[in-house]
């Protein structure tokens, strides 16, 4: 596989938390490559470092060592550069949805676009995403007035509104019932198949992972 086919390449990723005896080594020289248009599932037991891996890949936290390439370029080491790359290329979906409670569904998407300097652009795409995700009817509702499935699908709309090159999903079905989980996975599958959306999904669920093109397993901070 050539480098140009990889949207994401990580080599020798190291990450630890804490100092001294309390130091926890979470990622230990992890290597990972994700092809453009690939749907990758990362599985592993609790505490193996899946979420930390996602945070490092999503530039939410810095790595202690190792190299990280995104879209063929080294991930910036400065905060402003990481912010820029997150704004442009990465969309994230979280287990807890993380919608802003004081804003309605539509405004949660708009604020995300505003952060990215895209407010007012691509309104048609946002509308169609709401339709595709089956949440057009909750556009004016605040999160508290939505079901958990609706919240998660709105979170997906928000993550995709700016056409990110890479969608990172952290246990996206973890808080959903089986129907909603299946519906979300269908959405991911369709996005990947129809639009070539690259997706890296952290999951505990073998069923969820089965939707992916490829499954990797983590153990003790490394790919098993």
């Amino acid at each position, binding site marked *: 596989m050539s480098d140009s086919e990889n949207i994401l390449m990580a080599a020798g990723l190291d990450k630890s938390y804490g100092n001294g005896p309390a130091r926890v080594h979470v990622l230990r020289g992890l290597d990972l490559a994700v092809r453009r248009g690939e749907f990758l599932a990362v599985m592993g037991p609790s505490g193996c470092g899946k979420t930390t891996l996602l945070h490092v890949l999503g530039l*939410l936290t810095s790595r202690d060592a190792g190299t990280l390439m995104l879209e063929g370029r080294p991930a910036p080491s400065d905060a402003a550069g990481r*912010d820029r790359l*997150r704004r442009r290329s990465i969309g994230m979906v979280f287990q807890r949805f*993380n919608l*802003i409670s004081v804003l*309605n569904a539509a405004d949660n998407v708009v604020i995300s676009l505003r*952060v*990215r300097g895209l*407010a007012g652009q691509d309104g048609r795409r946002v509308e169609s995403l709401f339709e595709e995700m089956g949440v057009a009817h909750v556009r004016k509702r605040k999160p508290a007035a939505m079901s958990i499935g609706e919240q998660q699908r709105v979170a997906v709309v928000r993550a995709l509104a700016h056409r990110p090159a890479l969608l990172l999903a952290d246990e996206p079905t973890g808080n959903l019932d089986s129907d909603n989980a299946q519906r979300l996975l269908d959405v991911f599958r369709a996005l990947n198949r129809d639009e070539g959306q690259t997706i890296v999904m952290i999951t505990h669920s073998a069923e969820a992972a089965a939707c992916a093109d490829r499954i990797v397993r983590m153990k003790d901070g490394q790919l098993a």
Partner: protein
Amino acid sequence: MAYLPLANILHYKLRSALSAFGIGIGICMLVTLSGLSRGTLGEIADRWEAVDADLIVFPRGWGENASDKSGSALPDRWADKIRSAHGDIVERITPIFTWQIRLGGQDQLAVGVDSDQWQHLTGGRQLREGRLFDPDKHFAQWIRTRLLTASPDSDANEVAEGLSQQDLSDPQHAGLELVIDSRLAAAGHYTLGQTVTTANHEWKIVGIVPAGAMARVFMPRQTAQYLFGNGDITKSTLMFVKLRGGADVGPAARDIGKTTGQDVVPLGRYRGMLMEKFGIMFVYVDAVNVIALVIAFLFIMITLYTMVLQRTREIAILKSAGASNFFLLRQVLAESLLLTGAGTAAGAAMSVGAAWLIQTLRPLLTVTLTPRMLVTAVVVAAAGAIVAALYPAWRAVRVDIAEALTLE
């Protein structure tokens, strides 16, 4: 409402309202106390500036205290001396005798003035009701005859003791008559013809002049001189000088000052003298205002800080989408400015209400709300909002995304 700061404010209605109210109180205090202190003094200065004169002559040495001095000070003969020495530039001299008497529940500056000079002193104001005291100067002539010519060898005090309430208020010369202004009449519920007791004498209100005249209480000059000047009816407190057209105020003041050996200042300087004399009051008022505003903005800071602490996850969500530090700072700042803006608007409205209330309860006080004060309040509020937002904004910028998103 994709505008997050406004959405937050509207979502946390009670907290936002309380924060804005806290700012509103600070702004209301700033505007109202400034308006009251400066307005009351300004209203006095306005009334003095209504006098149809160009210069004030007062005893040398009074300096900036001249604005609140009263009693016997200048021999009336200085008026003749000024006239004779500067007749070419002096059109008119109006000596007055001032004293504080209690009317309408508070001390009032009472001005003794000759009836034929009253029009000049009040800037040509017509009486709204009644008549002027001593219109034919019978009283003036009577008392001068009685005191200055009855016993040339005796000392003035000795003669003065001979005049009683009955002598002064005798209908033949009616020396105990007052003209008051309409604000005092309204505040004290005084009516034309009413007898009032003050300064140990009974006075009859014979006229009411529209507010804006130099003082709120006027009386015959000789009455004031006699009662409040130890019986000496040959001295006044100060003199207003009206110059002839074309005469320069500055040189005229210097020339008359040389002639009389007294201080001569342009009438326009009175306002400055008044403000300098009572300027310390502004220091107190401004100190209270600063304390009130600091408390109000600490309130805003605590509100914003609490908001940042409560919403670390939402801040982390924005950061996970790539929000820059500037974007976050702008959100916190905008929320601070919105709260402060609402508080300032509320404070301005409260100020209008407070001004109305003060002037209703104490009609003789003046609260002047000027656009300049409101602009000052807005500027102070905006500056305070920015300062109050800085620390919470810094905390927002420092939120650790991964930690905030991981915490349950």
